[in-house]
């Protein structure tokens, strides 16, 4: 049976369609989830897609964190459900305290859309097992509030615990502390990534297909579970 991966649409979600396509291309069954329904519809993993949920009002991700679907997602994630937050999804996971730290305005104060290279630091999470540790991949950065921040103690814990998922290589584009592009929960099932792997699944429409590994990784994780 095919793994079923849900993609949540919040008001203002934009890359939900792209995430659904990536799930399909990886060989799983994409399932649309609606922010207003307190149900995960029995999916095997969840993606919180990029966009501007609730228009970024108040703070990025701050309102989405209280959506009815999150009431189901937060305990499920704590129990091991694979969850990937991309860009705005990463911001929502931080606001929901499923991941440590916060995302702030880019150092240059401008939105950046650029093909960038990141190094996979932890290749044993639910979303990165198809990569080699240290592998450099090209994905798409597109965000205005992508600078990852955390206090010194948290950073030390992240580094010591292998929770830095990926780092920018070839220059820090947005002022993220320690060049951090993504982090993972201690258990490795909840992952947040600022750049977009779902825009790099096909050479025709992206800078390459390096990003597909995130979506094939979760299939292995689900099969093992």
């Amino acid at each position: 049976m095919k793994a079923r991966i849900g993609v949540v649409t919040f008001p203002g979600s934009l890359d939900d369609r792209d995430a659904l396509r990536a799930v399909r291309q990886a060989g799983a069954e994409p399932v649309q989830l609606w922010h207003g329904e307190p149900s995960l519809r029995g999916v095997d993993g969840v993606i919180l897609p990029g966009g501007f949920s609730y228009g970024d009002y108040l703070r990025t991700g701050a309102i989405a964190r209280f959506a009815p679907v999150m009431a189901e997602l937060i305990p499920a994630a704590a129990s091991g459900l694979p969850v990937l937050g991309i860009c705005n999804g990463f911001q929502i996971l931080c606001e929901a305290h499923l991941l440590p730290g916060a995302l702030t305005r880019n150092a240059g104060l401008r939105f950046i859309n650029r093909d960038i290279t990141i190094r996979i630091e932890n290749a044993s999470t639910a979303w990165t097992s198809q990569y080699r540790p240290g592998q450099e991949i090209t994905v798409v950065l597109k965000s205005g509030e992508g600078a990852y921040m955390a206090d010194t103690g948290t950073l030390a814990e992240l580094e010591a615990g292998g929770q830095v998922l990926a780092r920018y290589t070839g220059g820090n584009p947005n002022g993220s502390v320690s060049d951090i592009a993504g982090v993972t929960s201690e258990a490795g099932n909840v992952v947040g990534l600022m750049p977009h792997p779902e825009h790099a699944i096909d050479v025709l429409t992206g800078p390459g297909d390096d990003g597909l590994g995130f979506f094939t990784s979760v299939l292995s994780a689900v099969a093992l579970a």
Partner: protein
Amino acid sequence: MTAPQVTGQDTVAHAAETPDRQQPFAELGLTAAEFDQVTGLLGRRPTDAELAIYSVMWSEHCSYKSSRKYLRQFAEKAPQTSVLLAGIGQNAGVVDIGQGYAVTFKIESHNHPSFVEPFQGAATGVGGIVRDILAMGARPVAVMDALRFGPAHAPDTRRVLPGVVGGISFYGNCLGLPNIGGELAFDPCYAGNPLVNALCVGVLRHRDLKVAAATGPGNKVILFGSRTGPDGIGGASVLASASFEGSGEGAKRPSVQVGDPFMEKLLVECCLELYQADLVVGIQDLGAAGVACATTELAAGGGTGMRVWLDAVPLRDSSLGPPEILMSESQERMMAIVRPADVKEFLAICAKWDVLATEIGEVNDSGRLEMTWHGELVVDIPPGSAADEGPLCDRPAIRPAGQDALQADDPGRLPRPGSGDSDGLRAALLTVLGSPDAADKAWVTEQYDRYVRGDTVLAMPHDAGLLRVDEETGLGVALATDGNGRYCQLDPYTGTQLALAEAHRNVAVTGARPLAVTNCLNFGSPEDPAVMWQFTEAVRGLADGCLALGTPVTGGNVSFYNQTGGTPIQPTPVVGLLGVHDDVRHRVGSGFEAAGASVVLLGETRPEFGGSLWAWVTHGHLGGRPPEVDFAAEQRLARVLVTAAGRGLLQAGHDLSDGGLAVALAEACLAGGTGCSVTLPGDPFTVLFSESAARAVVAVAPGAEEEFKDLCAEEGQPASVIGVTGGPSLEVTGAFEIPLAELAAVHKQTLPALLA
């Protein structure tokens, strides 16, 4: 005794009994003759609310009163075509692209608001054009922007440009629409009047086409989206229909709207779900002239009547009365005509998307547009009189006295590097490549999301944006916008045709067949006979050109009064051209991606430097004649490019325009990260910097050389093999060699140095 005014508003009955009351028609932008015309057609003086309607609907911006007479040529000279499903006069033109798909696209100006308040002015320009596309029944799928500013080094450009780009970035990105291309140009003539032209393209199935018509007496009129506030009142009648002169005494105080892209995103998804459920009989977006425009156009479009309860309009500011409500240009609003039985389901879908929706009226068969305010009649007019039967101006158009002298000032007299002057040629290339017009635009385009929706096949810096429409078949559309104020200043007829020809090449070079045209005509004041002459020449040039190329004009926009004091901008018609790509997997990008491909120059190069980028950048010279236009040659070139792309013969293709072969080769090397070595056929300076039209440079795949040569021979396409791709530099045999790193530095540094 006069009729009582319970609400304090000027009612129809009160107007009939007080014929002599003075009304501020001049302040609202109407002439005395136009005011008399209103009085004549109503048989009494208008109420305040009616005056508001006529003042905005008869404004230059909404009525096209100076331009309508000439725009008819687009229909009269339209080429024979079966691709047009909806044309001029609709919110946007709709073109059949096959496989049951249609595409709708349009470009519109937001010049004046973007000067007053760059961020919001540009943002709401994007919002407005997206709603035009949405109103046709289409899902908006991409945007583009054609931007023109004052000199890149001017202090005010540092205010206006980052604001405009930030506004487009904010609104378009938040809406989830990829920005796939456009233009960025600089000239002193735009210093006090930047041009911000926004294009949107949408995709629909044929059966989903919607019309702006209120049909079916008994059907309900529903206003949905944002609440109505006091923003943008008089935007169309005042801001977009007059220059900034004489703004003393606050008589014509500009007013810019404020955009909320999150609301627009909800409105887009809400509308698409309403269409899907077949709950919409007719629909109109609210843009310039707000409720006044939407109600009159819907009623006129349906040939029916309509009764509207103005007091039902949800307000953000409870002090607004009928005239303000009618004129408000609050953003993110739509108006739909809905069958009574469908109203409940319509409102439920709006509620799902958190979109406020309110029944504000009813369609009837009275042939009148009537509006009440707490029960009193405040508007009673024939809707067509406001929407379609506005005044028509016959403005004098006189060729400027200085035109001959300008054309006689041939750039042939300018000093230029001779054939043996290697250093001079090298320096000229770097100077032109590093000029703001030719420089790398990444500082701007990196602020736009080009990936969202996952169907962007080509975007900046390629010649055209290319979108996939169908994942299975690979069907797609290509879009390019082009304009050239310098060419048009020298000769508006030819200059406009050159813009059209360039857009045609930019689309064809990707492998797409050019299909249809939209346009945004940016000019100075129509009250200036010289400007009016430029306008008439440009329209005639575009209509003749579209007939010659077989690409109909589907719609567009006229923006007059682009001037600073008495000085108009260069005439700047911007042409948007749409092409269809049979299979986007065979797209051709502009970059040299691999070594070993033959570099072939297509077309004929003549010594044509009038209006050229070289003459402007190196000598500050603008004079002479623009390059010649040959539409047969353009069509031949397009056929060769499209056929070659379809057969997979090309690794790269790049149109030749501003800066000629020199800039094209440098851009192709930088875009793909691969150098090339070429030998120039003829005088090196002419071959490098001439801007002769109907040319392109292509990289022919190894092994495909013979087939491509045969194809050119069959078509009679002039083609010269000038070199080969590869190596770390741009090398011109016998002249110079420039390492890619040096080219890149010159190309990339300019805008960040000026703007960061």
